[in-house]
């Protein structure tokens, strides 16, 4: 099947897939951007002109801060950088299909990895705010026999998060590939706008938004 993920090379016997290589490329882009942008912020005096690039960077970072703040409230300061990182990465990963990459998010390993981190953050926040006793007690509420259901409910969060993102991106990718085999010109262009741009931005947003909401409601 041609949608299988190719193994790029082996690193000491461990297979490094196309997904990982593409992830590294996206990471390199983001890190290069960060390094280029950060220099002027560390040295700039408050009244200095940041330039167009600096202002744009500030606008993006400040915009994400505000958005995370409006969703998470006082927890934004602690979780803001991770949520921003997650959103930036997912956005570029989902959009990377536009330049012919196989989106790293069209691989369950990627989405499940991120969902696992979200799961740990959610459980960690709950543990911290309820205490160890309160945390375990919450699984037996409102009735003790609902314990299995509570466990399933908690585990459903990372599974639904990861499969939603993975399914949407993979589905879009498959539809576009099939379309290219039938009509390779003109028709695919507007569909890219839907499957890659619209769906990609929306799914990145949904994943981060749900992570924020679950962390906030874990209190």
């Amino acid at each position, binding site marked *: 099947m041609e949608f299988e993920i190719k193994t790029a090379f082996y690193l000491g016997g461990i297979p490094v897939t196309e997904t990982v290589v593409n992830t590294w490329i996206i990471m390199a882009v983001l890190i290069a951007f960060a390094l280029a*942008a950060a220099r002027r912020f560390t040295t700039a005096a408050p009244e200095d002109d940041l330039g167009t690039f600096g202002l744009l960077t500030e606008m993006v*970072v400040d915009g994400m801060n505000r958005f995370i703040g409006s969703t998470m409230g006082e927890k934004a300061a602690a979780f803001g950088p991770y949520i921003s990182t997650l959103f930036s990465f997912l956005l570029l990963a989902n959009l990377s299909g536009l330049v012919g990459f196989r989106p790293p998010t069209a*691989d369950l390993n990627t989405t499940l990895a991120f969902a696992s981190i979200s799961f740990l953050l959610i459980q960690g926040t709950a543990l911290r705010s309820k205490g160890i006793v309160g945390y375990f007690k919450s699984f037996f509420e409102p009735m003790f026999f609902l314990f299995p259901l509570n466990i399933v409910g908690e585990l459903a969060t990372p599974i639904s998060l990861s499969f939603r993102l993975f399914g949407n991106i993979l589905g879009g990718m498959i539809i576009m590939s099939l379309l290219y085999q039938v009509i390779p010109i003109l028709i695919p262009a507007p569909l890219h706008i839907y499957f890659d741009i619209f769906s990609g931005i929306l799914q990145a947003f949904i994943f981060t938004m749900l992570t924020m909401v679950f962390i906030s409601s874990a209190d």
Partner: protein
Amino acid sequence: MIELSWTYFFQIVNILILYLVLRRYLYKPVNDFIARRREHTEGMLKEANESYARAKELQQQAEAQLNEARREAQALIEQAVETGKTMAAEIAERARTEEAARRERLEREMEEAKNRALQELRQEVASLSVKVAEKILEQNLSPKAHTQLIESALERMDDTYVN
């Protein structure tokens, strides 16, 4: 694709590395800068407000001082006018007094001069009389004619000078 593989662990490490790098090199500097600038802006705003309040206070003080100065100037003018009037009255009074004194003195001097003139005339008459008498004597007049002559002379003299 759906089966789990090493990629899962790679991706966990990748996102954590990306998180640490972006936090260190992007979010921290940018957020620090935003905080620094907010502080700076708030400081400037506070300073501006303080300056404005101080300027307003100074303006009120200046206005109060100006009003005070105006009032003082008005008072000074009034006082000067008053002094001027008093001085004018004094000068006029003194002039009147001096004029009266001068007139009195002049009158007195005139009186004295008149008396002195009379005195001198009398002496002159007396010596004239003696000279006349001598002249007559030289012409050998009779005692009778002599007396008559003196008396008539004296009479004429009285008529002319005394009256």
